[in-house]
């Protein structure tokens, strides 16, 4: 029988090109292609059609794809929020555990374990280190590339004659939308974010995209209310002559959480600055349930806290 009588089917040619044939059969097809011009020509047509399809797909869709910076930043913020929530969820699990029957012995064991771990941590964590707090603050810090901070030329007399409303001034609606676009945030709700100045107007901060970012109200610890308190504190220090304006601007732009810790002498926000409260447990349970369905899980942006 002539080799031409045994041409390879299109399906096998495609499988061979895709590396999907069993090894032995792939060897047979390869040998056949070496001998048969007809099948080689057909293989070339198949490869050509694939190349055309891939090129056209890319040309059709790639021109529509925006840069990934904004959506990347948004995803990072969302992931940080989820990580925070999982920590909170584990505490709720613990509270349920201690209310369970026969929980006394379990709690005593757990408490002993916690004490031992605490002692070990105290010996191993460097003094002044705040590594355990770092994850809580990530969502509250702006993306450096998008919001490095920007100032305007301002006289001390202007800074110190500002009313409270100007020190923590709100931005215009159009600017809010621009900032959301910059960070790739779509359908943001009023209670989710404060569009905040990295360097506040009361400290000479400029109203432009380099100095504005969407700061989540819902961050468990380092939220927009805490930053507002820092801004007022720095403004007081600058105007009383206890702090240089440039230093205040630099510190708040570099890491406002570190500045808060420095000027309030604390590792955590003071209670009166964290204006958040828990939602009822039933609401929390609903949110949790919607998030653990599995492959079809959709994260909802529902608020976890009520503003006081």
């Amino acid at each position: 029988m002539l080799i031409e009588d045994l041409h390879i089917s299109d399906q096998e040619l495609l499988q061979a090109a895709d590396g999907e044939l069993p090894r032995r059969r792939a060897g047979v097809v390869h040998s056949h292609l070496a001998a048969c011009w007809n099948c080689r020509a057909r293989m070339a047509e198949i490869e050509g059609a694939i190349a055309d399809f891939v090129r056209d797909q890319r040309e059709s869709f790639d021109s529509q794809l925006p840069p990934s910076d904004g959506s990347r930043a948004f995803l990072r913020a969302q992931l940080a929020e989820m990580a925070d929530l999982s920590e909170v969820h584990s505490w709720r699990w613990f509270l349920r555990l201690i209310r369970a029957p026969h929980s006394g012995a379990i709690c005593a064991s757990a408490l002993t374990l916690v004490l031992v771990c605490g002692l070990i941590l105290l010996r191993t964590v460097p003094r002044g280190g705040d590594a355990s707090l770092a994850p809580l603050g990530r969502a509250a810090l702006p993306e450096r590339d998008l919001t490095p901070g920007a100032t305007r030329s301002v006289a001390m007399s202007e800074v110190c004659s500002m009313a409270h409303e100007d020190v923590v001034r709100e931005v215009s609606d159009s600017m809010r939308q621009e900032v959301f676009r910059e960070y790739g945030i779509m359908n943001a709700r009023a209670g989710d974010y404060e569009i905040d100045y990295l360097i506040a107007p009361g400290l000479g901060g400029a109203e432009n995209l380099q100095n504005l970012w969407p700061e989540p109200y819902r961050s468990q610890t380092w939220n927009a209310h805490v930053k507002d308190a820092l801004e007022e504190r720095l403004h007081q220090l600058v105007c009383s002559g206890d702090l240089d304006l440039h230093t205040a601007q630099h510190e708040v732009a570099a890491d406002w959480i570190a500045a808060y810790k420095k000027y309030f002498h604390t590792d955590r926000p003071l209670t009166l600055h964290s204006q958040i409260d828990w939602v009822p447990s039933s609401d929390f349970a609903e949110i949790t349930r919607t998030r653990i369905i599995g492959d079809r899980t959709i994260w909802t942006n529902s608020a976890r806290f009520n503003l006081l």
Partner: protein
Amino acid sequence: MIPIESINELSFPGAPASAHSAKPSEIEHEVMRLFDRFRDPLLRYALSFGLSLHDAEEVTQEVFLSLFRHLQMGRSRSNLRGWIFRVAHNLALKQRYANKNRCDTMEPSEGVVEKQSDPSPNPEEHLSSAQRRSRLLAVVQALPETDQNCIRLRAEGLRYREIAAVLGISLGTVSTSLTRSIARLIRADGR
């Protein structure tokens, strides 16, 4: 070209061996790496369902948030690429269904063709190339939906078994579908 061996199981260097022992920050880091790798292919795939860019971006975000939960709960890490595309496929279908119910669908062929950019300097070549592409797109859009999904997933680098898992069909169906689609593309191009 992405090395197949490294991507099939997606055990990235530095990725935690067990999700149970992985800290949230490690999982976040891993998810961000996967985002960098698959964001564009997923967006293209979601757009191929006729979704608007806004909807496609939302689908993509939701895929990676679900991935975070998936890894955090210590679920299977085998073939994460297939998992990612399967979730994207399901979410894109769901979004398209929701859009349909709102009578708010866009016609994918019109949107795509209008936004094509062609670097060809020659007007005749430009016209010819645009016509050829338009014809190719028409052929693809005339394919049965499963065939369209198969060929688009294959174009994004998925192996046959991954495509079968994403679409819930057999390996044989994937192979037959791809062969049929390629044959139609060849015929349409007059080869």
